[in-house]
């Protein structure tokens, strides 16, 4: 063999030439019955236990959900709730009480839950200015805030529909006649507080228009500390959602009676929305949600069923 021969030989085996000749070594998997049945069995045997563990985690969460939007409207106003909520002269005080069904370990998260509320509506989602939230007075970057960008020819901070419609019901919790302390700090994402909402940006000209939306903001507190606003402005993708209100850092015992005094300010009556108060503990998986566990058990057991069916098929009508 001459040198050039060896050269071409080497060339022929080089990776590029394997590529050009479409002869790269390839593994060609075949859907053999054994392989497929094993795969389904494997999925089944992984998914069912994981599903059970997930279900257990979900069941370990204690959750109290109290709807209050109707109960908090006094009987005489029930016919026309909208005018009730829009009438500022009527006091909006209301109280709820419930019994704790199970021992709840701190921290207990307090959420308000809105239903049939479209925070994901296109007009709504777009109506904000991230630039303004971070850098403050900026007359140019607020055109996205329509239709709530200026009032009396002066820009609104924070502008936009989302901020304007800030949720403004408030809750105080009393257990055994003593007030339960609710920690309302650090309810928003740290990253939002630090990088999305400015430390030197103060609310300005907010809720000063003829049309009052939701809550007002204390103009002396910078946006980065207005945690209710920050939480509210993380819009939800679903029409039913919960937002964090605060944390109770004490355990609640079984049969503890908790009384909630609340200000029922927020108007969900005009569009038939629901308002609920949620107290919930958490697990490693988050809040109470059976879906993942049930889906896992379902997928796992279907996989096992498919594996069994395929095994039977394979045994009854062998291909060879």
């Amino acid at each position, binding site marked *: 063999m001459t040198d050039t021969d060896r050269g071409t030989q080497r060339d022929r085996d080089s990776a590029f030439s394997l590529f050009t000749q479409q002869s790269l070594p390839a593994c060609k998997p075949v859907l053999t019955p054994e392989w497929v049945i094993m795969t389904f069995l494997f999925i089944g045997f992984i998914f069912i236990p994981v599903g059970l563990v997930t279900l257990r985690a979900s069941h370990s969460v204690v959750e109290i959900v109290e709807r209050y939007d109707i109960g908090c409207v006094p009987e005489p106003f029930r016919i026309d709730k909208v005018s009730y909520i829009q009438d500022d002269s009527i006091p909006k005080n209301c109280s709820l009480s419930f019994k704790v069904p199970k021992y709840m370990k701190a921290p207990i998260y307090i959420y308000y839950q809105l239903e049939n509320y479209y925070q994901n509506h296109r007009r709504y989602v777009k109506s904000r200015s991230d630039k303004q939230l971070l850098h403050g007075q900026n007359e140019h970057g607020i055109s996205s805030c329509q239709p709530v960008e200026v009032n009396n020819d002066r820009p609104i901070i924070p502008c936009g529909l989302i901020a304007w419609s800030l949720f403004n019901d408030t809750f105080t919790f009393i257990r055994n006649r003593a007030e339960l302390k609710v920690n309302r700090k650090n309810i928003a994402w740290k990253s939002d507080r630090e990088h999305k909402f400015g430390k030197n940006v103060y609310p300005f000209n907010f809720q000063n228009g003829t049309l009052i939306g939701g809550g007002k903001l204390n103009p002396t507190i910078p946006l980065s500390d207005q945690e209710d606003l920050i939480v509210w402005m993380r819009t939800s*993708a679903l029409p039913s959602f919960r*937002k964090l209100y605060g944390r109770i850092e004490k355990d609640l015992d079984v049969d503890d009676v908790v009384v909630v005094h609340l200000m029922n300010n927020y108007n969900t009556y005009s569009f038939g929305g629901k308002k609920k108060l949620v107290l919930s503990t958490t697990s490693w998986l988050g809040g109470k949600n059976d879906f993942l566990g049930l889906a896992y058990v379902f997928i796992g057991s279907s996989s096992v069923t498919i594996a069994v069916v395929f095994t039977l098929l394979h045994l009854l009508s062998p291909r060879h």
Partner: protein
Amino acid sequence: MGIDFELLHKIKGVIECPNPDKDITRFDANLRLFPPFIDNDVCPLTIKNTILQSCYLRNTEWACGVAVYTGNETKLGMSRGIPEPKLTAMDAMIDKLTGAIFVFQIVVVMVLGIAGNVWKDTEARKQWYVQYPIEGPWYELLVIPLRFELLCSIMIPISIKVSLDLVKSLYAKFIDWDAEMIDYETGIPSHATNTAISEDLGQVEYIMTDKTGTLTENRMIFRRCCISGVFYGNESGDALKDTKLLNAVAGGSPDVVQFLTVMAICNTVVPIKSKTGAISYKAQSQDEDALVNAAAQLHMVYANKNANILEIRFNGSVIKYEVLEILEFTSDRKRMSVVVKDCQTGKIVLLSKGADEAILPYAFVGQQTRTFIEAVEQYAQLGLRTLCLAFRELREDEYQEWSLMFKEASSTLVDREWRIAEVCQRLEHDFEVLGVTAIEDRLQDGVPETIETLRKAGINFWMLTGDKQNTAIQIALSCNFISPEPKGQLLLIDGKTEDEVCRSLERVLLTMRITSSEPKDVAFVVDGWALEIALKHYRKAFTELAILSRTAICCRVTPSQKAQLVELLKSCDYRTLAIGDGGNDVRMIQQADIGVGISGREGLQAARAADYSIGKFRFLKRLILVHGRYSYNRTAFLSQYSFYKSLVICFIQIFFSFISGVSGTSLFNSVSLMAYNVFYTSVPVLVSVLDKDLSEGTVMQHPQILFYCQAGRLLNPSTFAGWFGRSLFHAIVVFVITIHAYAYEKSEMEELSMVALSGCIWLQAFVVALETNSFTILQHLAIWGNLVAFYVINWIFSAIPASGMYTIMFRLCRQPSYWITMSLIVAAGMGPVLALKYFRYTYRPSKINTLQQAERMGGPILTLGNIEPHPRPMEKEVVSPLQISQPKNRNPVYEPLLSDSPNSSRRSLGSGAPFDFFQSQSRLSSSYSRNCKDN
């Protein structure tokens, strides 16, 4: 013209030339020189006096000329033109599917737009937080539909065009690179000039092939001859070694000498003397080359050509001839002649050679031409090419008179070719026929095997040749083109008049209809004359015949007839491939869906005009079965996958609009959407260009498998419906799981959208993996590397505080519920797909699956015998070929999928015969494609 060098620059004159045109075979102009040279004498200028743009000068040091056309007005510039873009059947199908998706998109947009407006009026106006103005201008009504149009615009994947162009150019590169398609004799690799039509190669139904130089080597060797009724070379098969002939030459038999003189002189060959004194010949035509060389071996050496003076050496003596005129060969006249003057005796002689029907009818009255006819027939049956040689002595005045006419005809600017032919006719008559030469043209290596394999693959072959009928039939027999009796049957269409042709055609058609149900290999043979009449007057009948017949031999056809035949088959919606090597095939090659040129001895004309050029005919097998088939399969997957992935994301957006108040909110941010289409999903699928469903060897052994490509089984509305369904299913899986797993307190928009997007990406990776037949390292890299890249890219985005998804991906990756959701999406999305695929693969296998199993389990295809026919209900129009099954009593040897034994297959089929299968295929596929066109 005999002008001295020094005077050249003083020449003044006028060239009368036609307007620039693109016909590179004609240049009908005149040159008038001014005094003091030749006063007003018209010199005809033809294409022979012309050097075309970008030509090379060979065998001469210099040439002196005038630029007649320049720039884009040169003949080459004019003929460059814009070649008609060829659209593959597949591209047409993709366009159709795109159209269907577009209609679907419009419907979705309209429905959602109306629903959105209704919802706005009934619900959204009550939602104070959205602040819809009570009364808006009328065009407010359009806002929501337009929003949805924007959302749904991703339904038609734009990336598909880019991806397809990329992979198509790679298919072409694979052809260029293929080491097994390099002609090692000449070192010429195959080349794909047209990079866009590789898929069509896999869908070819008809191959129109030239004979000379395509099936044969075009290396002509003089084998036999018949001079004045005496046959030479019949015993040994080589006339040059026939002692009878050698003796006759040595003895100086006048007939033989005259015969050799015609062989040596009647041509356009240029002898070139090398320094050592050896003479080599430069010939345009291989036949002439063979004849001159043979004459030289028989001691009639064409030694020199000096201007118009030829020098012939014969047995030591030198004979000089002055060439007076050359009557060029044209494919219409089928003969060429020279008029020469013997310099010693001053006698003027017309020497002619040509096809038998162009010479023998013009023999002088009284000459017996029967032996020559017999000789021609005998030679043709041996597959030899025949030429008749003849001569006639001319009287001086006859020549002078004719010469004037010829000159005039040569200098006409209108219809010059026709005028010359007419004038030539006046001289070429009353021949004294000298004899017949027989030249052998050997078959190329591997031609019979190639044709057999491709015929098994269901491709119909038509041979279009300028040669004689008998020669063509002989070649056809020797290269498996047609089967010999009794298996095959040749039906002849002939006749000189319309009636005769009509009757003949009807007879053949009748036979064809009857025998089409029999296991007989029926082919029809038609000659150029009958074809002309048939195409002109009985086009419909001939078309029916063309559809019925798998094989045809058309002999004595002109280049334009070749193109007409291709056109005819194309008009019946067949995918045609034309293969040829010479200039006479160029039109057919350009006309066909795919033109393949053989870069052979007749120059590169055909190869240049063709979409693919290959060195040898046998590479056609690889070109079609390997490159064409893989290209088809890969594009089928790639295009449908592209639609699938766009549809998945689009369906999710549509579902999301139902829970976002039908307002047209996009769940995904614009960066993710863009990256999804151009990056995350198009990279993994690009490596599908390396996917091989079956190994090359398996395909070569089972060429029938090409049927799946021909009939378009891998890309048609029903397969597309499967992908559509899959995208809908996957969108539902991703959407439902995401909104339930990330409900309530986790329902933050950015997080939820990223969960849905990663769900899609995970599914994509597994879909590509499941649809990949062979994993090379590149596939693994692309599929799993892409998944990793998705996370890396999103981590980078999540690290930028200014981006909308700041910290989102880190947040998600820390949650166990995210990973649990992902594996749930993958299991729920892929489980049913895998189960369905396995079920089909095992219990309703296609032939491809069967071969895959056999190939990968090792061992011969023993299992084929037990496979039950399983018509797939969803593909009604192509059901019957699937019912081809192996009879159970097959002996377990490695055999093609289809039975060759008519009896056994007839039992299982009812009407089956091996090639009935193919016929039904092509019928079906054509009816199929026609159906599509109707849609």
